[in-house]
């Protein structure tokens, strides 16, 4: 059968970021997939070498708006690794609280977008409405809706006020209630079962071979989580469990993310309730020459930062590796063989984040025609409609 190439992007409503996928299809089946990035490259690593250690958190925060805690967290850990200092306990707790708040909002954001790709705009609207609540919490805690600016090498920039804690706890309790309802509505929906189960399966061996990270690997039965494997912050001081499922299909990835939100809420709550008193900043002295590594479990998987210092006030080398860099290649094993109507949700199921990934730009401008992904979403929505009809639901 003749092969057709379907270009998606680079500017399309499927994702909020520019990237270019080309799907090679034979009839209905995808036989190859390729991705071209580079629309997001801003030279962050180079920029960060021109800033002082204290300014870099503001730069890495803007690597990605969704991970605006993960990158600073990994960076400050790398700097603290160089200087070998210990962080006040209260600062560790505050860092954990902010990091978990981010995980909640990131997973909810993905859940909403996934609903949108499937033609379930109700899910999109409900989940994003719920997400506003957690953004309110973050605004109370950090003063910002998105770029929290809480991290600095040696501690945190801003304390949590005692009088805010009851409000925050009340707010996250109310989130749990709505989320419970949503969880039942989403995970028990027969149409979603029919639509998501058994597609885009990432086998356990493949997850290991591709070194998949975060929820993408945990959904395939690989129990990998920096927060458990090398505890930091307050993660070893509070009770929580790692969510692992076995099948590795898109449905399992949804399940992992939804259940993780509940875990994050409970971590956040226990940290708030047992917040120790004391200073929030270790007042780092000058950074000694050396190199350091920082890792943090971002919502999408392990974020890795490497910093080298020569004793001056700015890093001589700063390397960033975001989780999507490892997760994106798994599309090779999940999308190939799937129907085109499923491609949109499978590509989205790793929760890709290109602005995190684009640390290196390779420009290749070829004469391919660009189209938008509206067509793909339409196919996806039509498939859901068809299934609904077959199952006698509206």
């Amino acid at each position, binding site marked *: 059968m003749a092969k057709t190439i379907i270009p998606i992007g680079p500017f399309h409503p499927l994702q909020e970021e520019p990237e270019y996928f080309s799907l090679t299809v034979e009839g209905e089946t995808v036989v190859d997939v390729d991705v071209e990035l580079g629309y997001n490259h801003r030279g962050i690593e180079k920029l960060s070498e021109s800033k002082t250690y204290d300014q870099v958190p503001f730069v890495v925060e803007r690597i990605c708006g*969704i991970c605006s805690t993960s990158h600073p967290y990994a960076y400050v850990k790398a700097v603290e690794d160089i200087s070998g200092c210990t962080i006040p306990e209260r600062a560790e707790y505050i860092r954990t609280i902010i990091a978990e708040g981010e995980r909640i909002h990131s997973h909810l954001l993905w859940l909403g977008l996934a609903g949108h790709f499937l033609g379930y705009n109700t899910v999109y609207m409900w989940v994003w409405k719920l997400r506003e609540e957690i953004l309110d919490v973050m605004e109370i805690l950090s003063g910002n809706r998105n770029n929290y600016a809480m991290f600095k090498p040696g501690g945190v920039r801003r304390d949590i006020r005692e009088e805010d804690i009851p409000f925050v706890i009340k707010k996250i309790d109310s989130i749990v209630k709505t989320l419970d309802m949503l969880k039942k509505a989403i995970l028990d929906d027969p149409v979603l079962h029919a639509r998501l189960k058994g597609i885009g399966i990432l086998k356990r061996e493949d997850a290991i071979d591709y070194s998949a990270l975060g929820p993408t690997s945990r959904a395939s039965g690989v129990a990998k989580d920096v927060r458990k494997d090398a505890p930091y912050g307050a993660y070893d001081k509070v009770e929580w469990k790692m969510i692992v499922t076995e099948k590795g299909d898109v449905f399992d990835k949804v399940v992992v993310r939804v259940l993780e939100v509940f875990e994050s809420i409970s971590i956040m709550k226990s940290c708030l309730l047992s917040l120790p008193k004391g200073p929030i900043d270790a007042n780092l002295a000058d950074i000694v020459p050396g190199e350091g590594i920082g890792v943090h479990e971002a919502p999408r998987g392990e974020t890795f930062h490497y910093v080298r210092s020569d004793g001056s006030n700015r890093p001589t080398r700063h390397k960033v590796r975001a989780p999507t860099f490892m997760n994106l290649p798994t599309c090779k094993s999940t999308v190939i063989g799937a129907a085109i109507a499923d491609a949109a949700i499978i590509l989205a199921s790793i929760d890709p984040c290109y602005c995190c990934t684009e640390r290196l730009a390779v420009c290749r401008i070829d004469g391919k025609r660009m189209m938008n992904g*509206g067509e793909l979403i339409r196919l996806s929505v039509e498939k859901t409609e068809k299934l609904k009809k077959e199952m006698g639901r509206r």
Partner: protein
Amino acid sequence: MSITLNALLKSPWVFHLSSGSCNNCDIEVLDCLTPRFDVERFGIKLAGSIRHADVLLVTGSCNRKSSARIRKIYEDHVPRPCVVVAIGECSLSRGLFIDSYNCPLPLDRIIPVNVYIPGCPPKPEAIIAGVVKLIQRLKASV
């Protein structure tokens, strides 16, 4: 007033173009569509394709690779009349990325810009206020 402009002012369809942003601005744009802010009240709708759009919302610090595409989209693909809204510090002046080797020009040196919405990221309220101001200005100009 021409019939196209009249229709445009009643219900502007927006297309959202990210030219190398950090995602926050884009998320705030999408946030405007969800229940708390709900810009569909004003007839503003996110268009699925550039060819259906009346308003281009551009976010991000146009990098070398995407600026060529943005110019092409603006010149060849968008139907006229078309207004351009620059959202976020990045597209206004490149903000933090002003020294970056890969972000040579701010947006308004690449394509003409009608409305600037500052902030990093601007709150959804600011984005809505910006679009409303744009509509008022268009009304006054005809």
